[in-house]
């Protein structure tokens, strides 16, 4: 394919991307632009040229070790719901625009920390970008058979123009507003589009290699398995390689959060938190699809070319070898897409950092304070534009001069290890409020220097001088300082080894210095806000640790400079409205200070915002002791409140208990009164009868007929009996209820006991013409007080007799054993128990309202006594509801 044809195609392709980005920018609110798919696909910026070409190279040369780079993110995705959501929330609240901003804000807008992180990111990412340019250049060369990248004149080099086009693209869509925390929908949508293309084209070439050049996966496998060294390509080599895998996965786990381009797209460009729910399964799926054919392409390439060509470009070389130029072009465009998205997003993210965390806070602030609002905004945009160009040009220069000999894979990993130095400050700082800025700076610096010593330095020395002395013998020929085998750890691959040492030292420094040094009040306030992000707003609003003097008008002036008068006024009005502060307030309070800093953060970064605001605020340094005092006081108030609440709860509980006890007493008193009343009433009735009859019989001039006289005498007798029965019952009941009555427990036979009870009422039954049936002949011998059970049975039988009609009545007694209890049934065919009585029949002196017209004379204690007797036996008595006529009483006794 000719040079110009390919360039035209590239320009056409870029034009399409411009159009898509433009469309998305114009329709930023459309649901085509805002949906979880676009969000997830944009995250696939992770798959750069390294993935697209590099994975195949690794797979061909060292087997499946390309995988951990994708397994790390897959493991990380479930955590997004918790961790990434928290990061997104905090970033939105603070108008964060980059990872440097995020970390420096966490440690109290530390200017130096922000700058340090920016430098580290630039150091780590620029070579990575240059690698992407190298990929374009090399693939361009393969497609056109030209050797432009060897040219000494950059203006002859097509890669240079491509780099410039990319810079233009990033500039155009990345710096539409001066507020970097604003969304860049155009870039996001074009990245998502490119993600589709690169996956699609990669799958096409995968299918092509596997099913057209070869006869499917098993064909490739069968052929490759015959080649020498095949074993080493398909397995993890022992425990040591396992460690390697582990560290690689950790590195990529961290990278998916911390790479500036990932942070940019997953956090800054996130429009809705809920997209995470889809992203956590779609993103791993994307990575899986991307990796399906890697191994087959690699094997296919190896079978076709052996070791004669660069395995990273098998995807291009295979179709070209078979004269499928169009297919090769698709692959080229897929790789080109991967490059564009990586380069554009990375430079955008880096340029924001460079401008907001390096250039503005360290040089241009004074200028801005004096400048006009329109000019300021223009300055900021220009700084960012220039940064983008400088970054891309630097990457280009780096590529021209250094990266010719470096593989995509090794530079990519180096970049990952450098970026991962931010991890302790980032992750631990999110969940641990003690982490301090000093510790963070020391940790990052130490980790960074170790990475340079153990990875960057030996790698570059070897690559450019070809001398292995440093690697083989260590610094000053000390074996323990061998960069690839520090202190004798020689079994890890260089990146894993560097990661292990740098990360250990980094974490250790971070923890030790965090524990030994406390940050200033500002830092601790922000730490609290980050760690406890749910209480963020209350922390932010109360902002209790601020002491100083500031005028609203001064702050307004600063805001005017950056936001323009109109926007500044609008924001302030909103603020006053929200907190119900009169708009003519003169002195600013802590909330306004915080609010203004937040407003400025998006434009100039948090560190600069702090410095700017501080310039108009006469802030008094609050000593740590004062801060602690304030915190203590608020803590004490909370604690006091808690104690008070507990006490009052205790008191009210006590009052409730007293009330209950009182009620119980009253109720007992009342019960006793009622009992006595009822006893008196029950006693009086027969006495009244006896007294009245006696009076009549005693009458002097008695002309009473003798049969009436006999009737009265008989009544007197009955009443007397009733009286004595009643008295006995009352005494029984009292004894039983006070537990004074001791049972006379012996082995008895229930059959005999029942017979005894029946015989005591037999005469009454015969008189009334009622049959008592007891057919059961089973002997159950167990322990109980026979007299008492006879009393119960007699009572139940008399009740049954009382409530059944003469001559028609029938009473049945049954008993059986159920669950180690002997249950005895007394069943009659009388009028039954009305529903309303059911609950009360075992209460003392309860007499049914529905008793027969002629009142059956009961003491009202019978069933109550039965109940007590059974309770003493650890048994139970109850009445059964039945549909049929009649009542059924059941009692059960434990069989023992």
């Amino acid at each position, binding site marked *: 394919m000719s040079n110009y044809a390919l360039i035209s195609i590239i320009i056409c392709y870029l034009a399409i991307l411009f159009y898509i980005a433009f469309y998305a920018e114009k329709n930023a609110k459309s649901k085509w632009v805002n949906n979880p798919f676009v969000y997830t696909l944009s995250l696939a910026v992770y798959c750069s040229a390294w993935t697209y070409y590099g994975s195949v190279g690794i797979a061909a040369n060292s087997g499946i070790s390309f995988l951990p780079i994708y397994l790390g993110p897959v493991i990380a995705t479930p955590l997004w719901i918790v961790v990434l959501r928290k990061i997104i929330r905090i970033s939105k609240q603070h108008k964060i625009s980059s990872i440097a901003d995020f970390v420096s804000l966490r440690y109290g807008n530390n200017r130096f920390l922000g700058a340090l992180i920016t430098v580290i990111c630039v150091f780590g990412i620029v070579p990575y970008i240059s690698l992407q340019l190298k990929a374009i250049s090399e693939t361009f060369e393969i497609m056109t058979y030209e050797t432009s990248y060897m040219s000494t004149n950059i203006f002859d080099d097509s890669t240079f123009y491509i780099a410039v086009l990319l810079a233009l693209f990033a500039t155009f869509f990345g710096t539409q507003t001066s507020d970097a925390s604003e969304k860049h929908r155009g870039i996001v949508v074009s990245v998502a589009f490119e993600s589709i293309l690169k996956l699609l084209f990669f799958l096409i070439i995968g299918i092509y290699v596997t099913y057209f050049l070869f006869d499917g996966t098993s064909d490739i496998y069968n052929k490759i398995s015959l080649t020498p060294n095949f074993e080493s390509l398909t397995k993890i080599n022992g425990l040591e390689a396992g460690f390697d895998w582990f560290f690689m996965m950790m590195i990529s786990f961290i990278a998916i959060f911390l790479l500036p381009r990932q942070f940019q797209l997953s956090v800054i460009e996130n429009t809705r938190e809920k997209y995470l729910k889809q992203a956590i399964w779609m993103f791993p799926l994307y990575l899986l699809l991307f990796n399906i054919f890697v191994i087959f392409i690699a094997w296919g390439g190896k079978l076709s070319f052996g070791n004669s060509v660069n395995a990273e470009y098998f995807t291009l070389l295979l179709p070209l070898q078979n004269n499928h130029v169009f297919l090769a072009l698709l692959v080229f465009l897929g790789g080109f897409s991967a490059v564009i998205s990586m380069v554009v997003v990375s430079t955008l993210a880096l340029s924001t950092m460079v401008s907001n965390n390096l250039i503005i806070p360290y040089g241009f602030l004074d200028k801005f304070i004096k400048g006009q609002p329109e000019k300021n905004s223009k300055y900021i945009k220009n700084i960012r534009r220039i940064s983008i160009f400088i970054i891309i040009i630097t990457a280009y220069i780096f590529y021209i001069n250094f990266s010719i000999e470096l593989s995509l894979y090794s530079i990519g990993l180096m970049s990952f290890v450098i970026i991962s130095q931010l991890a302790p400050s980032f992750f631990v700082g999110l969940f641990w409020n003690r982490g301090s800025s000093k510790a963070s700076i020391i940790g990052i610096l130490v980790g960074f220097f170790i990475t340079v010593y153990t990875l960057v330095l030996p790698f570059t020395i070897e690559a450019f001088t070809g001398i292995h002395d440093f690697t083989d013998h260590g610094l000053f020929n000390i074996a323990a300082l061998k960069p690839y085998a520090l202190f004798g750890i020689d079994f890890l691959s260089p990146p894993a080894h560097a990661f292990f040492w740098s990360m250990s030292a980094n974490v250790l420094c971070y923890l030790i210095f965090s524990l030994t040094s406390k940050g200033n009040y500002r830092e601790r306030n922000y730490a609290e806000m980050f760690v406890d992000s749910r209480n963020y707003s209350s922390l932010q609003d109360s902002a209790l640790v601020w002491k100083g003097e500031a005028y609203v008008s001064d702050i307004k002036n600063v805001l005017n400079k950056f936001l323009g008068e109109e926007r500044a006024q609008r924001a302030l009005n909103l603020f006053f409205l929200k907190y119900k502060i009169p708009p003519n307030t003169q002195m600013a309070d802590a909330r306004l200070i915080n609010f203004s800093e937040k407003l400025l953060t998006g434009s100039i970064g948090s560190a600069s915002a702090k410095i700017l605001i501080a310039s108009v605020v006469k802030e008094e340094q609050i000593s740590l002791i004062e801060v602690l005092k304030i915190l203590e006081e608020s803590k004490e108030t909370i604690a006091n409140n808690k104690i008070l609440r507990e006490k009052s709860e205790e008191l009210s509980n006590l009052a409730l208990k007293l009330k209950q006890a009182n009620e119980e007493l009253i109720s007992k008193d009342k019960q006793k009164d009622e009992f006595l009343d009822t006893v008196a009433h029950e006693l009086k009735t027969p006495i009244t009868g006896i*007294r009245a009859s006696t009076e009549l019989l005693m009458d002097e001039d008695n002309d009473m007929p003798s049969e009436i006289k006999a009737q009265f005498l008989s009544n007197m007798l009955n009443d007397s009996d009733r009286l004595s029965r009643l008295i006995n019952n009352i005494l029984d009941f009292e004894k039983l209820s006070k537990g004074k009555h001791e049972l006379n427990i012996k082995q008895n036979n229930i059959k005999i006991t029942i017979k005894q009870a029946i015989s005591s009422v037999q005469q009454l039954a015969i008189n009334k013409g009622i049959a008592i049936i007891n057919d059961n002949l089973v002997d159950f011998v167990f322990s109980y007080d026979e007299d008492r059970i006879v009393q119960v049975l007699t009572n139940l039988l008399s009740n049954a007799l009382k409530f059944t009609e003469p001559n028609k009545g029938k009473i049945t007694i049954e008993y059986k054993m159920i669950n180690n209890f002997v249950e005895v049934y007394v069943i009659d065919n009388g009028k039954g128990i009305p529903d309303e009585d059911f609950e009360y029949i075992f209460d003392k002196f309860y007499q049914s309202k529905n008793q027969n017209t002629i009142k059956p004379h009961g003491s009202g204690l019978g069933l109550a006594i039965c109940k007590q007797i059974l309770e003493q036996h650890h048994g139970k008595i109850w009445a059964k509801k039945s549909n049929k006529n009649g009542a059924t009483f059941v009692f059960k006794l434990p069989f023992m």
Partner: protein
Amino acid sequence: MKKKILIVDDEPNIVMTLEYTFKKQDFEVYIARDGKEALHILENNSPDVVLLDIMMPNVDGYQTLQYIKNQDRLKQTKVVFLTAKNKASDIEKGLKLGADKYLTKPFSLKKIVSEILELLN
């Protein structure tokens, strides 16, 4: 004309003595064994006096008194409680509800007769 008395009590032994006594005093005696029966009798009869127990099944003495008080037809009927409830509060309650006399059990038949005759004259 014979005076009419309605005796309402659920204790047959007691009723028997009262019945004998008032028949001897030349009263026309009606007997009810609870409030319900009493109301039934009162539908067709207007006795001069009702001797009323309080604690009875179905319809108690208070309810029976209420019924009598609400009937214009029974305006002339005197009501005498005859009950074992002898607490001061019970007596007060009974009189407040409109009973003409409140007598307690156990009782002297002679006293009952004199109290009722006094009430009727």
